[in-house]
């Protein structure tokens, strides 16, 4: 553990990141920004994995590995999401999330 920084401090950061992500997801209208917010949420979770692993089971590696795994998944997911956003842009002539509603009832 880095000197002077405790578990609590890190958790404050990750919680802040998580709720900033949620907030962004709910209020931003641009799909790219929504995607970025989702990434914030994901990364908050990854931080939690790492810090709890370090703090609770310092001799084990599962938390790190899972964090790496989540990062990999997030990368792939971002690629897919951007591909979808590109298609949405072509179809809707824009990426405002409020206009993407053709699948409603």
């Amino acid at each position, binding site marked *: 553990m880095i000197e002077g920084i405790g578990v609590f401090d890190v958790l404050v950061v990750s919680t802040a990141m998580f709720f900033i992500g*949620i907030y962004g*997801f*709910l*209020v931003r209208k641009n799909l790219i920004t*929504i995607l970025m917010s989702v990434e914030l949420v994901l990364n908050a979770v990854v931080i939690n994995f790492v810090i709890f692993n370090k703090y609770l089971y310092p001799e084990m590696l599962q938390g790190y590995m899972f964090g790496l795994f989540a990062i990999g998944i997030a990368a792939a997911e971002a690629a897919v999401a951007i591909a979808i956003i590109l298609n949405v842009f072509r179809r809707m002539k824009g990426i405002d*999330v*409020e206009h*993407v*509603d*053709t*699948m*409603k*009832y």
Partner: protein
Amino acid sequence: MHTELFSNTIWILVVLFFAFVIVGLFGNRLKPMLSGAISTAAILFAAVISYTTAYFYFFEQGMIDGKYAMLIPFEHEWLRFADTLIINMGIMIDPISVMMLVVVTTVSSMVHIYSFGYMKGEKGFERYYAFLSLFSFSMLGLVMSTNLFQMYIFWELVGVSSYLLIGFYYQKPSAVAASKKAFIVTRFADLGFLIGILLLSYYTRTFDFATLLGPDSTAISSMTGLSFMGISTITWVMVLIFMGGAGKSAMFPLHIWLPDAMEGPTPVSALIHAATMVVAGVFLVARLFGIYIGAPDALAVIAFIGAFTSLFAAIIAVTQNDIKRVLAFSTISQIGYMMLALGVSGYGGEEGLGFMASMFHLFTHAMFKALLFLGAGAVIHAVHSNYMSEMGSLRKYLPITHITFLIAALAISGIPPFAGFFSKDEILVAAWANNQLYFWTEWFVAGLTAFYMFRLYFSVFCGENRNYEKKPHEAPVSMLIALVYLAIASAVVGFIPFSQLVTSDGIPFDIHFHWNIALPSIGIALVGIGIAAWMYLKPGTAADKMAASMPGLYKLSLNKFYIDEVWLWITHKIIFKGISTPIAWFDKHVVDGSMNGIAWVTQRVSEKSKGLQSGQLQQYGYAMVLGAVAFVLLLLYWGAR
């Protein structure tokens, strides 16, 4: 060892069933004559097996310890619902089933051959033969059933083939109506039969005839002491089963379908509605006679209905003008004789004389009544009319038909030495021993029978010379073969020593000839013939005068005592108005209404709530987050407690 000998009887059913399937499925691709030939070959094959079976059963192998045994050469487990509820399919060989094999295959073969001539050139020739094969299959399956349930299945199959054949001319509205009437009336009666079967098997825990009728049967003892509405249970059960038999055998008041069934082709009337299917009810009572004997009240009901029906139908037959309807009512009357004989019979030895007489009459009646119908068919074929008023002096044109018809008419009137005399005489003896009122009723009916039969005979074959537009021609050879064969049968089957072969308990006994019964019955038959000759031989006004002298009775009889109208009134005013209309209302407004209500509510709710599915991603997001928060709060709350 005895049973294996008769295992070839299974081929009767197999061959007839395949004849039905082949002719029914591929008949329209075969030449009509070929499909007829397939069916005829199948029934002739069945007849050969039946005759040999009868020979071996009665004269070689059937007698075990001085008693004709009940053999089961083939039985297979068909349905096993539970260890106590198993339904088998099999074949039973005993005196009455062997006798019925002979009756059914004889008449059916003759009808098959006869139909080559009668149905020649008809549209649907192959369909006709397919149905005939189906009928023969089901009827033979019925008589050889090993248990009540199998019998019930074949019983319904027989009803279906009867329905199909009555409605053979399906473009004729009256034929369609008649077929529906026959089906519905017999179905209604079969409801009683079904309830009876269920009750009987509920108490006895079995369907098998071998168990029900065997020496250690519990059929009667299982129901002793039980009663329902003041009448013992066994009487209820046996009367309900008899209701099924009464429907099939056209007993009053369920007889109304039989006269209408004459809409079918005449050979069908001969086969189904004279000789075989309509005696299924008699056969049913005879089959379960070992149980009926424990229900004397049910037997009394049977005797009364039989006697009443025979009188009632004979009175109607006197005034009918349609040649086939006279024969139809005559059939009802004769089946009444058979039922009466069963009803007055006891069990075992000479006590079982009525049983023997009933079976004997069934046998002889099948021969001469089939012959009468086939003869009537030949007449209709020649004259192209059903009405006696358009016939007369046909003796010259149809010599062979005339002779055979005369033999049959003498046989049914009970003139010795033709077949009907012997069997009717035994019935009268049995009735005399039981109740003299029954004897005098049947004695009078014998006179009526002779009268209406010779009324028919004289007005069709004798009388003044008529000028026919087209000269009537004698029937083709195929029809004559059947007529002559059955005429010979009608003349000689009376000499079969039935009491040595078919008895209630399987033990042969000797009958004594009763001159004091036979002479009055011959006497009244001759009186009947004499009156018929006086009224109809010479064209005159005697018949009209007679009718005018009792206008009420004449009108009642001509209109069949308005029984059809009574049934119509019951169905229309009581059943349709009182029961069916409220049920229809309940169905439409309550059953359908509740379902429609649920559908309506669902539709409205979904219409209102579909706005939630807005397509706005972030609304969903809000909902999800709020839900998650609520869930967490809830968990915290529960966790804190």
